């Protein structure tokens, strides 16, 4: 079964955005699990803080997703125009992050934050056009 180039480009953009959302949500979740890094640094020092972060499973998974996202982005840019891929990936990532933060991280995404997300999304699209 053959897919049109548009489907390939759309799938690549969706995949890159999904990896970015997964990575950022996992890193945010890991950091929430650890707590304020300043407090950890006071008790364990800088080295202990770095070890605590690097041995947090959620952080490691998130960082791996972000690394994979980087290479997926390179692939997406090889088949899609930057003027399309850039704004589309940024917009999908910001929107996906807001939804994931509400449902997975259980953040209070109130009207103020939704409005900020929408402004940011439109702003980024206008800036990168």
């Amino acid at each position, binding site marked *: 079964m053959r897919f049109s180039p548009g489907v390939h480009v759309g799938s690549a953009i969706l995949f890159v955005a999904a990896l970015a959302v997964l990575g950022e949500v996992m890193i945010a979740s890991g950091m929430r699990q650890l707590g304020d890094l300043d407090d950890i640094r006071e008790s364990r020092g800088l080295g202990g803080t770095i070890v605590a972060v690097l041995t947090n499973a959620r952080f490691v998974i998130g960082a791996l997703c972000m690394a994979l996202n980087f290479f997926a982005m390179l692939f997406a840019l090889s088949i899609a125009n930057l003027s399309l891929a850039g704004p589309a990936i940024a917009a999908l990532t*910001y929107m996906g992050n*807001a939804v994931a933060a509400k449902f997975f991280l259980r953040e*209070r995404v109130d009207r103020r*934050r939704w409005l900020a997300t929408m402004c940011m999304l439109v702003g980024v699209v206008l800036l990168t056009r």
Partner: protein
Amino acid sequence: MLVAIMLSASIGDSFLKRGMEQVGAVNVHHLGLLWYALFNPYVDVGIVLLIGFFATYTAALSWADLTFVMPATAFGYVVIALMGRFWLHEQLSLSRWIGILLIVGAVGFVAGGPSRTEHPELDHMDAGAGR
């Protein structure tokens, strides 16, 4: 910390761009240039700034919500656009100025609210699992 996030990523990207312009175009047949790029001072400064960005971004997520920190990362687009306008003397179209105003407004909206959603019971369970 949010200011560091806003500035480090965009300035780091600008240094990388400047360095890679000096190194030349990298393609499959010239992958060795990537190794050569590591010895370019602009690339090195860019890498250091991007490591600094990731460290401050990660630290910010330890005390603030993702939806609070997110607009600060978007503000990098504004910094790049303003650097283009005032440093490289590029022309900014009306739509880009509107984009800048919208992102600045988004940062202002979020910064005026609480930085973190408190979940005492979840935080307690997470703290037990994470330490």
